[in-house]
């Protein structure tokens, strides 16, 4: 047992989910995370378990490396897998059960990975299995989102792959000992930024996550970005650049969330915002910073999962996730309202719930390093978070002003298992918020933080109250309209077509003209025909490719020259 990789039970569950009948599949869904947990426990207790190695294509691969930083992420992922499985227990879809278990398994594998090769292996598996979860038979748009998701992650994966090759050529490096000036570092940074969805690499997330089934989106919300946060903490702790990127992401995510009409897209933008917080902590590089980032990542897996569960339940009931079509659900679904508000208050930093603890730790870590500006930016972003999730979304979904005619009816009953999953997640959020001492014990470094000082409690309550006053006086600005807002994905969804018709086609036509004149001229000259043949074989549609290749070569040359 103590040499069994903890991802294996989850992969086995994935395969079983494809063949077993519904009842047995449910049993497997609820037991597999326990098996994975036992494997982790066994490994931590046995000194032999830590050396899981094998040779692949002549490279030694270290599959497992366990330390405190990895452990807290692994535990959080396994617990979340169980909660997500409970939430999805009623689902008859074999594909969802398969993809969710395999996605969870690859995430666990990635967090436990002992070197770059194994990290890369699981990283790519995560991309593949998560893509399956985006596919939603009920939404015709989901296929396009899936393909764009796959394309973006393919590019991110290529960066990672180049970095791995480079590192191997240089004789290999352990995860936390990447040379400061190595080009591999920059490639890895790009790959991690894609998966952590930090602007401008983020557009795949709000594009894809709102498309999945209610259950699929819950799973999607938990793994990819948090594993990327773990990877940052492992390889890039103390990189100053992360603080700026993180603060930008926090504001960017919150501003887009404030515009958004689709509930799940709104929450997706808040993933970007919250990952920004975590990056700030990692960028500090201090023990308290890493602690805060880990605590916030774990907290986020729980409360963001809870929020996706609650909005998923609304989608399940009403068939829509658009705020402009919802309203008045508070009277029909009091329990759901309560659970949703618990998640919303947790992410907003309400004392007594886990978000308050991790945000407080982060603010303290920032203050210790005198990053006052960043501290204020994050506080303002917290106000925006409460505004959009705690007030705007709750108001329009549960009270709301949508006219009776437009309002989605809401007749489909919400299964008991969905409620059970949400109640348990809420309980965990409250337990970590009220009794943080147990939680502190799981963090990678000793904790030096007193959560329940009267000033910090008052400060947090004031922040929420101030936001509430803004909400109360905002009036017309609050109106939600059925519309979408452009984001970076415009460039590859519309911009590429625009470039093709406005730039490439005229260029191609111009090229054809030049070509025919050339041909005529050369034929007149009766010269050697070889250049003509070359010229004719050249396809004008290759222009974009040529641009990219030339650009890539240029960057490489500049880079090499600069070294």
């Amino acid at each position, binding site marked *: 047992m103590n040499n069994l990789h903890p991802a294996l039970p989850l992969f086995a569950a994935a395969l079983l989910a494809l063949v077993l009948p519904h009842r047995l599949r449910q049993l497997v869904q609820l037991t597999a995370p326990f098996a994975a947990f036992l494997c982790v426990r066994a490994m931590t207790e046995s000194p032999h378990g830590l050396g899981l190695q094998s040779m692949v294509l002549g490279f030694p691969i270290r599959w497992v490396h366990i330390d405190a930083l990895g452990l807290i992420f692994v535990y959080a992922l396994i617990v979340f897998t169980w909660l997500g499985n409970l939430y999805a227990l009623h689902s008859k879809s074999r594909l969802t059960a398969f993809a969710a278990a395999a996605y969870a398994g690859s995430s666990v594998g990635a967090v436990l990975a002992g070197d770059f090769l194994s990290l890369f292996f699981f990283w790519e598996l995560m991309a593949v299995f998560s893509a399956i979860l985006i596919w939603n038979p009920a939404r015709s748009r989901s296929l396009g989102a899936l393909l764009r998701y796959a394309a973006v992650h393919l590019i991110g994966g290529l960066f990672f792959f180049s970095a791995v090759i480079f590192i191997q050529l240089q004789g290999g490096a352990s995860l936390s000992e990447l040379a400061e000036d190595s080009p591999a570092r920059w490639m890895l940074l790009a790959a991690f930024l894609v998966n952590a969805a930090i602007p401008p690499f983020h557009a795949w997330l709000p594009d894809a996550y709102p498309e999945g089934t209610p259950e699929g989106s819950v799973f999607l919300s938990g793994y990819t970005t948090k594993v990327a946060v773990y990877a940052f903490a492992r390889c890039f702790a103390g990189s100053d650049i992360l603080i700026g990127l993180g603060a930008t992401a926090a504001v960017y995510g919150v501003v887009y969330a404030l515009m958004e009409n689709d509930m799940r897209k709104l929450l997706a933008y808040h993933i970007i915002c919250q990952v920004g917080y975590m990056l700030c902590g990692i960028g500090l590089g201090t023990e308290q910073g890493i602690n805060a980032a880990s605590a916030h990542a774990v907290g986020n897996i729980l409360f963001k999962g809870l929020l996706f569960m609650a909005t998923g339940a609304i989608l399940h009931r009403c068939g829509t996730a658009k705020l402009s079509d919802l309203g008045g659900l508070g009277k029909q679904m009091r329990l759901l309202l309560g659970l949703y508000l618990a998640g919303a208050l947790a992410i907003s930093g309400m004392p007594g719930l886990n978000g308050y603890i991790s945000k407080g730790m982060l603010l303290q870590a920032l203050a210790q390093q005198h990053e006052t500006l960043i501290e204020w930016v994050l506080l303002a972003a917290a106000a925006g978070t409460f505004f959009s999730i705690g007030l705007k979304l709750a108001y329009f979904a549960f009270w709301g002003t949508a006219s009776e005619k437009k309002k989605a009816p809401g007749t489909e009953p919400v299964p008991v298992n969905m409620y059970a999953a949400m109640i348990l997640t809420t309980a965990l959020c409250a337990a970590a918020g009220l009794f943080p001492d147990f939680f502190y014990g799981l963090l990678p470094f000793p904790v030096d933080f007193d959560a329940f000082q009267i000033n910090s409690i008052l400060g947090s309550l004031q922040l929420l109250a101030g*936001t509430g006053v803004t909400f109360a006086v905002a009036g017309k600005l609050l109106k939600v309209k059925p519309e979408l807002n452009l984001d970076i994905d415009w460039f590859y969804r519309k911009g590429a077509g625009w470039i093709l018709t406005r730039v490439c086609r005229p260029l191609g036509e111009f090229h054809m003209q030049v070509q025919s004149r050339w041909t005529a001229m050369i034929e007149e000259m009766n010269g050697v025909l070889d250049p003509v043949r070359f010229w004719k074989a050249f396809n004008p549609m290759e222009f974009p490719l040529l641009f990219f290749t030339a650009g890539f070569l240029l960057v490489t040359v500049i880079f090499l020259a600069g070294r």
Partner: protein
Amino acid sequence: MNAKKKIFVLGLASALLVLSETVIAWHKNHSGHAMLPGTHFILGFFGAALLLALAKLLSHNFLSRPEDYYDE
């Protein structure tokens, strides 16, 4: 409860929070540096207002499109 009453209650609660912060202790907050009482209230109010204004400005003038924009 009508809107005016709600705002009154909210305002009262905020005032009490700020007042209690002034009375109880305002030496140091958890992050270690002194802050004037009510700082967090101001931050919450103006932070949310600024971000909302920014979002609405961007959306209204530049980013907003019909829902089927990408379906053509």
